[in-house]
Structure formats: C-alpha cells, structure tokens
C-alpha cells in the first residue's frame, strides 16, 4: 500500500524547488533516470486485464529492474476526506529477465516512458520519497536515448510513502503535512485531480534562488569583557 500525491511545477522553478527540498529534507538528492515499461495482458484467463509496470533504473552503473503493480485506490467516504491517495502497491526487485517472463505470460507492452530528474528519500513521520522529474516519451520503441518530454514546460512532482492498512492514516497525515511546506511553490493533489500552478510560485522561486543572508554589511564591534584578564578596573 502507498500514499501518493502528485503536482506539477513549471520547469523554470525546478531549481528553486530543489533548493527548498534540500533545506526541508536534509538529505542529498539522488539523480533519477527510470525507464518505465507498462505491460498489460489480455484477459484470456480472467475477466479483467491486469497491468504491471517494469521499472529499470538507468542511473545505477548496472541497470536494476523492479516490478511494480498498482492496485485500485481506496474508496469511500473515509478516503475522500484524506487528502492523499491511498492505493495498493506491490513492488519487488527482479532480474533483467522479467521482461521476457512477462512477455511469455502474455503481457504486452502498453506504453513506456522515461523519467529524468531527481529524488529525495527521507524520514519525516514516514518514509517519504519526493521525485521531481520530466516525463519523456519515446517516439520509437524503446528508444530511450531519443526520448522527448511529453510537456516540455512542466515537470511532475510526486510524493509517495509506503503504508500498511494499519498505519495509513498516520502516513497520510505525514505526507500532507510535508506537502504544506511546499505550498509556496506548488500544490499537490491526488493523481487525477488537477491543480494548476500556484500564483506565488514565481515569487517564491525568486526568493529561494536569491543569495539571501550570505553577505554581511557590517561586522559588529564586539565589546570586550575583561573577565578573562588579570586586571580589573571597576
């Protein structure tokens, strides 16, 4: 299970967002370059098509593969009150033969995309992962080197945190309180709910990018206390 929210940010403000995240999260950013292959199968055995995603992390020296299945989101009145989306998610590391295996099982390529950006992993009430990436599509099959952004001017920000059915409320509140820190730059919402850009984003970005407080105008002349000395003059 995971709690997830998504938001968008204009590409020009991505650097400011990175600075903000650096300050809030306190960890180094990790580069992100993931080739995501989404496989679907025809419902020949069951009644519905099932979908599975293969993620190949291209940033590592040796590409590592992960298989991920996203399930349905939690529904109901309780789910509507939570500001994050809670959905089932199963993830596992696999060997590189996973693609062949799924093809043999009858899963065919539905779509693929390449995410390029950076990510922050940190702990704040829950194990939170923030990824800021530009989503690229490939014009030719599997041509990751020739990928072009789907939306050049806008990048996707995703905040996810793994949860279980017992603690998802705490995780959800941790994620939503973290999202409030990002309020000056972007709004985050459940996937599928569009937010638009935040009007204060430009100003916030400027202030984040400026060199605030780095230089001193005048160093104060400190008064000396003669307590450390041997002489007293009262």
């Amino acid at each position, binding site marked *: 299970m995971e709690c997830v929210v998504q938001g968008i940010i204009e590409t020009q403000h991505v650097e400011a967002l990175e600075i903000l995240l650096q300050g809030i999260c306190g960890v180094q950013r990790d580069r992100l370059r993931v080739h995501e292959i989404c496989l679907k199968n025809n419902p020949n055995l069951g009644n519905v098509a099932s979908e599975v995603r293969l993620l190949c992390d291209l940033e590592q020296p040796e590409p590592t593969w992960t298989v991920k299945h996203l399930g349905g989101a939690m529904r109901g009145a309780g789910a509507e009150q939570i500001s994050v989306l809670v959905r089932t998610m199963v993830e596992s590391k696999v060997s590189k033969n996973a693609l062949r295996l799924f093809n043999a099982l*009858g899963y065919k390529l539905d779509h693929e995309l390449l995410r390029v950006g950076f990510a922050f992993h940190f702990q704040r009430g829950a194990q939170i992962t923030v990824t800021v990436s530009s989503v690229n599509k490939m014009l030719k*099959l599997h041509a990751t080197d020739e990928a072009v952004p789907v939306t050049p001017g806008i990048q996707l920000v995703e905040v996810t945190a793994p949860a279980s059915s017992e603690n998802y409320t705490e995780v959800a509140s941790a994620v939503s309180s973290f999202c409030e820190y990002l309020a000056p730059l972007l709004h985050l919402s459940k996937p599928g709910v569009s937010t638009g*850009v935040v009007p204060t984003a430009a100003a916030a970005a400027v202030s984040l990018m400026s060199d605030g407080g780095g230089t001193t105008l005048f160093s104060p002349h400190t008064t000396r206390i003669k307590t450390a000395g041997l002489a007293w003059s009262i």
Partner: protein
Amino acid sequence: MAAMEGVAMQDQSQQQQQQQLVPPQPVAVERLNQAVVQQLNLEAVKTRAISLFKAISRILEDFDAYARTNTTPKWQDILGQYSMVNLELFNIVDEIRKVSKAFVVHPKNVNAENATILPVMLSSKLLPEMEIDDNSKREQLLLGMQNLPIPSQIEKLKSRIDMIGAACESAEKVLADTRKAYCFGTRQGPQILPTLDKGQALKIQEQENLLRAAVNSGEGLRLPGDQRQMTPALPMHLVDLLPVGDGVHTFSDASGMYMKNTPPLSSNSIGNQGNLLQASGAQLIGRSAASPSAATSATSFDNTTASPVPYANSPRSGTNMMNTPSPQQQQQQQQQQQQQQQQQRQKMMQLPHQQQLLAQQQFRQSQMQGLGQLHGQHQMQFSQPMGHQQFQGRQMASGHVQHGIGQSQLGQGNQLNRHLSQFSGAANSALFNAAQGTSNSQMIPNMSATVSSQSLLPRMQFGLAGNNPQRSHASQMLSDQMFNMGASNPGSMIQQQQQQQQQHNTQGAFGNMQPNAQNLQSNMVALQNAQQNHPNFAQQRQQNQQ
C-alpha cells in the same frame, strides 16, 4: 565614605583569579548609606565570595593531586569547573558593579603587598592582544582616511554610518513588505495575490492534463501498431533482453511465441490431430488392454499409449490404461478439440512421461468432478464446463471422455451417460454409434464367455466397498471400481462395459442419473440383478442395437 579594600590576589594557576573581600575595617566607623547597604547586600556577597573561594581551592587541590600522582587530568571536567567558577565570579562582580558608583576603590596605602599589582590595576592600557585587535579594527575602519585631517575623518565616518543606517531601513522595509505579501504573522487571508494571465493559465492547464494523463494512464504514449518497430539500436539495458530480428515482434501472441519456440512439436501435434480425425472409430471401447494405435503417426502419443502397466494393482496404472490418450479417443473429441487449445497438448507432450501420467490422473479427477456438476444439465451445456476446464488440458479431456464411455457402460446411475449424450453434433454421435457397433461385435463373443461367471458380482461389490467412502462423486467411485476390476479382470470389465452400453442405448434412461453414493449402492445392486439376467440382457442388447 567607607573604603572597601579589594585585594586581588594573583593566583599561581594560569587561569584562575580570586578576589577576596575583606570586611570593612572596624577602624572607620562611618556608616554606609542604608540604601546602598541594602543594594550591596554585603552578606550575600560575602557568602558567595567564600563559596567561590572554596571551589577554587578545591580545584587547586585537584591539580596538586594530579601533579603528585602524575595522572592525566580530565581536561573536560576541569574546563567545566573553570567555566563554572568563572561564571560565578562574573556574577559577583556584576552585582557589585551596580553599586560601584558609590565607591571608589583605591588602595589607601601602597605597601609591600599591593605594590606589584597596583600599577596593573590602575592602568587603563589594554592587554597586548586586545590592543592588537583594536589596532587592526581601527585600521580597517579608517582605511584611506589616515591622511586626512580629523574633522574630515569624522565626517566620512558619519556619512558611512548614515549609509548603513539607510541600508538597514530599506532592508526592514523589504522584510515588512514580503511579510505582508505572504501574510506571515497576520491572521487574515491573502489579500494581494499575484494572478496569472488567463491565457497562460489555460495553456498550463492543458499541459498539466496531458502530463497527468500520461503518467497515470499512459495516454499519448502508446505507439500505433505500425510504429512499433523495434529500433535496431536498443538501449544498453534492453540489448540482450529483447530478440532483435526482422519482423520479429516480441509482442506477438503469447501462444504464437510459445509455438515458435517449439516448432517441431507443434507440427507433430497438428499432424496428429489430422491423422486422428481421419482414423476410423474402431477400437473405441475395447481398450482395457492398452493397445498402442497403429493408425497415427509416431509422436509422443505413442509413447503414452505404449506404456505398459508397470504396477498391476495401483490405481495409477489403472488410470493409465484408461486415460492414456489413444488415437481413438482423439477422434471422439474432435468436437472438443475445436475448443481446446493446442498449447496444452504440446505441454503435455513435452512433459516427461511420468509427470504426464500423474497429470493425467489429476486432470481426470478434476474432470470427473466437473462432470459431476453436469448433473441434470442439458446436453448443450456440455461445452460450457469444458470451457472452464480448458486449462486443465485437452488430453485429459480425451482421457476422460473415453473414461466416460467406459464408465457409462459400467453403472446405470452414471451421469457420464448423460455426458456422452451431451455430445452435440452429428459427428460424435456417428462416431459413437460406429464405436458401439464395433464394440458390440467384439463384445459378443466375450460376453458369452464371461456371462456365466457369477463370481464377478461379489468382486464388483467388493471393489465398490473398497473405494474411499469420502469420494462422494459417483463417477469417481465407479471409475475406481472399474479400474480395480480392470486391473485384475479385464473380462468382467468388458461385460460391464456391455452393460453400460446397453444402458446408454436406452435413450430414455437419462432420467435415472443419480450421482449420489447412496444411490450408487442401489445401482450396483441393480446391476447385480441385471447381470443375473444375462440371457435377457443379451436379447435386450440385440434389440437396442438397432
């Protein structure tokens, strides 16, 4: 005014200094101002000074001990203690400083004890390091102004101060403005919001929808079929994963892929099917002795059919005999084979022999159960449960059909009768009738030979009793019984088959199908009775054949 002598004692240790206040000399009896006295709080100061003195002497003793024992002192502790002492001293001095205006300290007399310290106390010269610090700062400040006359220096410094003041003010203003803009510290909502241009907002909205759709559901990322040609230059992580060839799509039908990998077998199976379909329907029933068919091409089918019965009394062997698919069986199922998938057959063929047998047994049982559920269903619904069980293998269906035929010949209450009757299509019925005809011709001499054997009956019942009572499925019980008997006495089985045949031929007997175990007992009893009437039986059979 009373004078208070403050004696500063220079401590031998480098860091510490002690000040001891000596109570006023009883010589001068002048009184201090009451208010000052109160403020001064002499007693408290004295107490504090004494305690401070004690702390310092304690520390000195510790130092002595360190020196004597030559142990390494714990500097952290010592520094901590020093800072404590320092702080206490500072506090005392601070307190006195408040009231120091009322007093002037001066050693009244210069005598031996204060001769050395007095100049230091009275000097206003800075300590050397402080002096250096002071000089450097002054240099920095008056850079470039040393040469000018003093008033101009003063003016320049003043202007500098003014500039700094102005900068501070503007900074404050900016802070206040941004504070207002972001409403930090105010309880009202945002009053001034920079708004986006409408057109801009629309464009952004569009882009956002595109992006979200792409990420969440893959809209706009799907390449149409014609564009799904693999690039010859695959990225590194996919290079050895995907086969790159001319027109080879890894995304073809999975079954096609499977077939591609196993070409020889697939062609064989297809060939088999063709041959089987063409073969005559002879030798359908008389398979109690597993006879390898000569009619079909040599494939793994022959491997299975030619399997000898390794273990005489094991159910598995019995199963094998009845379930090993023979070419004759294949003919009967050409109907089902249209529904069936070749994959399963290939799979079965590829399995090693033993596994195949085991799988067959399992499939048979599951098939039997499925058939049990056919109870009462119309014959046209036969295909439906078959469809459900497609994944269990078509070979097994073949086994089960033959098995069904055998079983239908076995007991009256067998719903497999119904199962056979549910074969839709003329071909099946034609085949079956042909089979009936041939089997009859085979059966007749056998029957006459075995007709008189009464001993079959108790054996039959014994076989039934020996079944696992938990198997509530009639067909299973019947089948096991038959297998037991089949292993031991093929003749009786043939006889039973004949009876089944007879039962089956009575078209109106379908209503008798009762799958329950209890009914089975009664059925067996009935069978027993029927068997006793074998002369009539033969006649009946003759009639029904027409």
